[in-house]
């Protein structure tokens, strides 16, 4: 690809997924014009998890910290849309659905959480739901509508971030198909990276390698970072008229995806897996259907059984789906951090080494704020939200 002209940089970002691209975007806005940022990826840009996921921009009101974190990020997505565009940004809001009477009480709980964060969400009755989403099953009891969420196409969003960076001022070189093979260090300082096309000397490197971050961290001599793959099966329909207009989630999704604060470590490696409906309309028509979760290592084979259950469930909510042709199904690997918080910030034992990984099923939503926190910390600027819960220092012990 692009030949490495001068093999020096101020920052080398390793990993061209949504996290790496967001870091480049946010750094480019803050570094001087004389600076040079290099992004390397061993494959194409967006070739891994960020090219095989959904694109729900989700505000999570679990508590004030999580709300501030996700809300700030979703605002930055809007800025990227204004600045650059080209990634099918669609501020649909989100509809939380249920068909199990036991789950309906959760609407009020979630609404209360949004209100506690100073935001709002609306409970819709059956009639209001039908007006908003006429394609949904008519027997659904109602829904919770949160207007602040949206949908993007993550693959093209990666490019939008890089293009915004390339016009921001500093020199930005994007080098796909350039793997990191080793890390250069002097004592407790980073001095650069080595790739098959040559070394790049740099005082800062950021590891944004998603589920491969532990493996790449090992190249820098780090202990095994607590990030494991959590597989998700997805299906996408042809660009026919979509039966839905809004990002849809089963409200039980929250329990399922963001539930229990700790994870049974004996399950990591192989569990039965679970599913909850997550459907989003596509800009060209048709919809994307998820989502399942299963710990089973790096295996990217389709789990037919799980996908089958997810499709069945999706058709329960949107019966029109049954007649839509499915074009493709696939598996993506979420980078799951064992304590459920991503690792964002400096590695305390090696100066110049930064980590940004482990966003599980929210990496698209949280990419811009992650990029911003890395840029702010690297340049010694005040952070726009409290960055401490995400510092990698917590896993050093």
């Amino acid at each position: 690809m692009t030949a490495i002209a001068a093999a020096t940089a101020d920052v080398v970002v390793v990993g061209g997924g949504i996290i790496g691209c967001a870091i480049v975007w946010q750094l480019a806005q803050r570094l001087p014009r004389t600076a040079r940022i290099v992004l390397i990826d061993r494959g194409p840009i967006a070739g891994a998890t960020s090219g095989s996921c959904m694109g729900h921009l989700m505000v999570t009101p679990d508590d004030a910290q999580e709300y501030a974190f996700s809300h700030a990020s979703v605002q930055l997505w809007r800025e990227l849309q204004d600045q650059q565009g080209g990634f099918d940004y669609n501020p649909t809001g989100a509809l939380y659905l249920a068909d199990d009477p036991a789950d309906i009480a959760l609407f009020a709980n979630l609404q209360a959480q949004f209100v506690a964060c100073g935001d709002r969400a609306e409970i819709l009755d059956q009639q209001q739901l039908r007006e908003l989403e006429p394609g949904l099953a008519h027997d659904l009891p109602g829904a919770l509508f949160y207007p602040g969420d949206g949908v993007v196409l993550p693959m093209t969003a990666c490019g939008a971030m890089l293009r915004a960076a390339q016009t921001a001022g500093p020199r930005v070189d994007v080098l796909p198909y350039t793997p990191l093979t080793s890390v250069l260090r002097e004592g407790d300082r980073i001095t650069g990276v080595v790739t098959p096309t040559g070394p790049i000397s740099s005082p800062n490197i950021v590891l944004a390698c998603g589920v491969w971050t532990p493996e790449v961290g090992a190249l820098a001599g780090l202990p095994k970072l607590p990030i494991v793959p959590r597989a998700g099966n997805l299906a996408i329909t042809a660009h026919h008229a979509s039966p839905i207009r809004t990002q849809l989630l089963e409200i039980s999704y929250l329990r399922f995806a963001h539930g229990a604060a700790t994870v049974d470590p004996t399950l990591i490696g192989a569990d039965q897996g679970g599913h909850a409906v997550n459907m989003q309309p596509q800009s060209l028509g048709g919809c994307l259907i998820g989502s399942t979760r299963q710990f089973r290592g790096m295996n990217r084979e389709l789990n037919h059984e799980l996908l089958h259950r997810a499709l069945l469930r999706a058709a329960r909510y949107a019966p029109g789906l049954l007649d839509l042709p499915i074009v493709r199904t696939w598996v993506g690997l979420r980078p799951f951090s064992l304590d459920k918080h991503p690792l964002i910030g400096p590695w305390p034992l090696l100066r110049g080494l930064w980590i940004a990984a482990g966003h599980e099923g929210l990496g698209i939503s949280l990419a811009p704020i992650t990029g911003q926190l890395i840029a702010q910390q690297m340049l010694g600027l005040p952070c726009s939200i409290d960055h401490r819960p995400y510092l990698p220092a917590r896993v050093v012990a």
Partner: protein
Amino acid sequence: MSGARVLEAQVGIVGAGPGGMAAALHLARAGITVVLLDEGFRAGGQIYRQLPEGYDAGHRISEPPSHRAGNHLLDAVARERIRIVHGATVWNARPGQIYYEQNNESWLLACEQIVLAPGAYDRCVPFPGWTLPGVITAGAAQVMVRGFAVAPGQRALVCGTGPLLLPTVTALASAGVKVVAALEAAPRSAMWAALRGVIGNGARMREALFYARSLLRRGIRLQWGASVFAADGDGRVQSALIGKLDQQGAPRPETARRIEVDVICAGFGLVPAIELGLLLSCAARYDAPRGGHCLVVDEQQRTSVDSVYAVGEIVGIGGAEVAMAEGRVAGAAIAARLTSVSFDPRLALHARSERRAADAMLRAFQLRPGLFSICKPDTVVCRCEDVTSSQAAAAGELYGRTTRGIKMGCRAGMGPCQARICGLNLHDIFCDGVEPDLPVAQVPVKPVRTATMIDVPRR
């Protein structure tokens, strides 16, 4: 959603063209139960395509001598009462199981052995105007004429490259279409190279003679080293810009001239339909003259997966004779496995010699790199996702100059055809110097209804 629909057979065959039928016949005669699955509504495949049952075209479509073998095969398959499931879209397969959709119903064919004979896709190099109604592939022209007795237009331009242009011209002409021009992109030297390759193969020589005579009789001259440059028209094709190609195959603008046509049949070769094989984890390799990625088989047509055999175009484009010969080999090999008869190695020898003749022909008609410059910056390269050449180029520049990089950067190849149509073009236009990425096989290999995927029969 209703109950399980399961068929059982010892051998399941995908594709009722010459390869699939030849395998089926051999197996049936050995007393083995087979089921043939085919997307079409009658047996024959693309080459021996038949009109719908009981349909009288009113005119005779002229057939080359080789079709006699096809007719014999069709008759024999009918006589043996081999079960053919028509209108079957195979969407998933594992060793021993083939899943298909028929009349909106979800079916499973359970079988011990699988023979893959799904044929190939038409290839079309994109040129300005190729998405206008009235531009069709050479294969589509044959489907219309042979399969439905429909003339696609009145004045046709036939263009592209390879031995399939000739049958397209004769099929159109015998259906009453005036073939205004017939353009072969390869230089005239390809003709001699191809002829040298088929010398000694009597059937292929007779075939070549048949076409030469058939063109002569109608006063149609095949122009070598020439191509379509653009299609034009208001809402549909009304004219075409055509001209000569230089040494590298690139258009020579000073030779361009406009002809009035209402249909353009373009056939720039064929691409093996290997996706089912990939889904079954069969090994594949890239072989440009043979049309792209091809399944790897041993001398008995067995793939890298023990119970899966592959014959015909998916082993490499080769035509009906190769497919038939390989079909017999696969049938004989499986029969030897399931019964006490032994495998006759002469069948394999014969298949190999047919393959050699076909390879010689293919090498002569390889696309020259210059030809891709008929594709202009605003020409659509991916029709499913509506991506232009300049968008694909920009995506490759930023994301990585591979078909995967381009796909991620602009979604080219992500639509219903899953890059079957655009994949090789994207590679040949934008990805100099790297081998094309092996396509990723994903379920469903052809779009099927969500209901079909949900209502999967189980045994």
